[in-house]
């Protein structure tokens, strides 16, 4: 009854887990665990990329998987861990909306993104097209996480998870972007992280905390 070959089943399972991870990130309040979840998300992305690479035999996807492994599973989480340890920011404050509310909004977001993906998936010729909806959902859920978080660290993790969602989307719609672009994007992400690292220290030096509550003074004044 199940017409899908095993590799696609695995890919679908990866996609479903990615979606689940996005929700756990939405609910998670410890920054260390957030970083773990991010690394796990990266690892799932690597697995998914490898499956697609094996299926299509496109060499640049192997390279892309390697890039993801180095950057998003090992590199960035390590960097973030160091930052968390050095700055002692283990907990996020209470989120702006309560967790159950966030979850419900998240569900609506998922419905919305599945609807959004429908016309595109219908046109796609890739075997992986059905996971595009999940990719969009991951992107939008990360967006939601950015809105509901107060700590700089959590926002950054959400930002990176959005980047992961974008990669997953590119893979499911078109088996990845051209190599030049992928390299460029990876470089940008890396530089962004370095800039952020510097930035965190500047913020902390100035406010003794990474709470974005301090960064709310520049409002329009009467």
């Amino acid at each position, binding site marked *: 009854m199940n017409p899908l070959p095993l590799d696609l089943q695995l890919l*679908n399972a990866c996609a*479903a*887990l990615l979606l689940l991870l996005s929700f756990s990130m939405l609910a998670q309040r410890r920054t260390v665990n957030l970083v773990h979840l991010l690394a796990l998300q990266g690892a799932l992305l690597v697995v998914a990329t490898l499956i697609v690479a094996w299926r299509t035999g496109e060499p640049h996807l192997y390279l892309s998987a390697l890039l993801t492994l180095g950057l998003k599973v090992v590199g960035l989480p390590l960097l973030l861990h160091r930052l968390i340890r050095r700055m002692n920011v283990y907990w996020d404050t209470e989120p702006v909306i309560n967790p159950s509310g966030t979850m419900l909004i998240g569900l609506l977001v998922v419905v919305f993104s599945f609807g959004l993906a429908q016309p595109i998936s219908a046109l796609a010729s890739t075997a992986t097209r059905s*996971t595009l909806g999940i990719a969009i959902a991951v992107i939008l859920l990360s967006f939601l996480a950015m809105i509901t978080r107060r700590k700089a660290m959590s926002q950054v993790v959400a930002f990176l998870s959005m980047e992961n969602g974008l990669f997953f989307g590119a893979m499911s719609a078109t088996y990845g972007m051209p190599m030049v672009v992928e390299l460029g994007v990876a470089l940008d992400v890396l530089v962004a992280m370095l800039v952020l690292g510097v930035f965190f220290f500047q913020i902390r030096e100035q406010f003794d905390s990474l709470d974005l509550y301090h960064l709310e003074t520049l409002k329009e004044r009467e």
Partner: protein
Amino acid sequence: MTPLAAATQLLEVVSATLAAPAFLGWANQCRAWLQNRRAPSVMQPYFVLRKLLHKDVVLADNASSLFRAAPYVVFGTMVVAAAIIPSMGTGLPMSAAADGIALVGLLATARMFLSLAAMDVGTAFGTLGARREMMVGFLAEPALLMILFVAALLSGTTSLPLIAEGLSSHALGLYPSLAFTAVAFVLVLLAENARIPIDNPSTHLELTMIHEAMLLEYSGRHLALMEWAAALKLFNYACIGFALFVPWGAGNEASGPLGLLLAVPLLAIKLVVAGAALALIETLSAKLRVFRAPEFLATAFLLAVLGLLVHLLLGA
């Protein structure tokens, strides 16, 4: 109605009613072992029932007839529920009368009578327990419905025996949607049957209890029926779980009497494993504060809906 179907039906109802306390006893025994305590016998629930059935009923002065009727209604609903859940065979004549959604309704009826009876006498604890029970039920029911919907979508019907048939004939494969709903189902099972982390069945600490608080005013045969119904409810939930997530082995028309005979030990094995797993989960988790229960059930609901959405998107 073929003789085989009638036999299946009868066997299911009778064995569920009789075996339910043993399942509960087994789960309690495993839990005691895991906690390094000396375990009570598997037969302990039977002893309790026998003792209670021999005692006189003590009624509060202001108890109404509702209070006296509730145990019979609750127990009756559970028996009816047992009749439509395909635990041993899928050729159930009674199941034509009620599908999965009606089953949720049956369970809700039992909950409603239980809560009404708890409030009937007007003691503080009864009302408190009833309120908490309604809160849990209000959150658990949609989740349970969602779980049933996923299974219904996968097999194209809402009738439980047909779902079990359909799912057992699916090719083996990865079904993320079923995996999500299975986790959701375990969460709902824990909450609905007053297990840790939502409620602790073995405590009478007023501030935390839910189910026990509703039974405080009952005694004698009423209490026996209520306890029996609770055991039967746990048994029923376990069987719903088997029907949805490990549907293999239930007998049907095609497999004949031999299939039915084989299904009995198979069900016993499933129950033994499930009881042990339940004890393990209960030992590993700590009881949540009551106001965290909504979050727990929201997670179940979320997982079930995610399962539904994933199924709609990926078709798996």
